[in-house]
């Protein structure tokens, strides 16, 4: 019998709930507290919890290391991409009003996308730094 069975079962139960909460914080940031930064950290916490009880290799079958590495840059790319899209559509850099037919919709879309960019970068960064430490451990 595994001595850490309670720890493992609890962590397995908690990890999906943490991820779900991270998505809620990510996409509900317009209305309540939270946003991309907090959501990214929470998402990484779910991964770290899973990695702590099941091992880094098991966690990396969920999010392989090259994926989280690419996420770090992808988020900044999305953020800057939204800015340049605004420019291409006739506005200033990071002007969301022109992104949709209606300025309010444009603002919503722009804020949603740049927050998503922040979330993806932060999640990737936290997962990568934790993994680098965990892999280093003797």
């Amino acid at each position: 019998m595994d001595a850490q069975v309670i720890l493992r079962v609890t962590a397995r139960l908690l990890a999906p709930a943490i991820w779900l909460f991270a998505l809620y914080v990510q996409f509900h940031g317009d209305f309540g507290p939270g946003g991309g930064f907090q959501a990214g950290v929470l998402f990484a916490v779910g991964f770290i919890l899973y990695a702590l009880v099941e091992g880094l290799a098991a966690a990396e079958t969920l999010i392989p290391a090259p994926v989280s590495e690419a996420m770090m840059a992808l988020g900044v790319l999305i953020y800057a991409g939204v800015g340049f899209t605004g420019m291409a559509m006739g506005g200033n850099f990071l002007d969301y009003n022109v992104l949709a037919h209606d300025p309010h919709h444009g603002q919503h879309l722009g804020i949603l996308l740049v927050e998503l960019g922040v979330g993806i970068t932060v999640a990737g960064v936290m997962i990568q730094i934790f993994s680098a430490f965990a892999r280093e451990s003797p």
Partner: protein
Amino acid sequence: METLILLAVLSFLGLTALAILRLRDGVTAVMLAGLYSLLSAGVFVLMDAVDVAFTEAAVGAGISTVLLLATLHRTSRMTHRPTHTPLIPLIVVMVTGAALVYGTLDMPAYGDPQAPIHQHVGPDYLRDGPNTTGVPNVVTAVLASYRGYDTLGETTVVLTAAIGVLALLRGRRQGKERS
């Protein structure tokens, strides 16, 4: 009542800081530092800064604790007793602290509506934010829309910092494999 809770949480903060000072065991110190962050998050909630409290709880109490524990795991758990006398650092800290406290004397009272920070662009954001951006949470509207440049810069800083840390950690591993 709120002031009473605030005072209680603040005194817990002070006690935690004093306890960390007296510790030689790194793991316990890191745990108490996590507790310190959680208490700070409580202070931020009491001051109605829920977004800041959320970040403090997630980053300070969560991720930092894990990363510090990982660092301790790689280095040594116990700190050595300092060989030099702590008198000079103590004087430096006292003088710096006194200067900072002296600096706060000139600051406007907490929540004073006449304070310069509440007279600049803040009122415009609060009044026009929901109408201009259509987003009810003013913090999100300011961060992502009004101050979109700054947030883009911050995200880039996070990426750059991570590249630096990862370069250090990976460089170490490759050096170890070579030797």
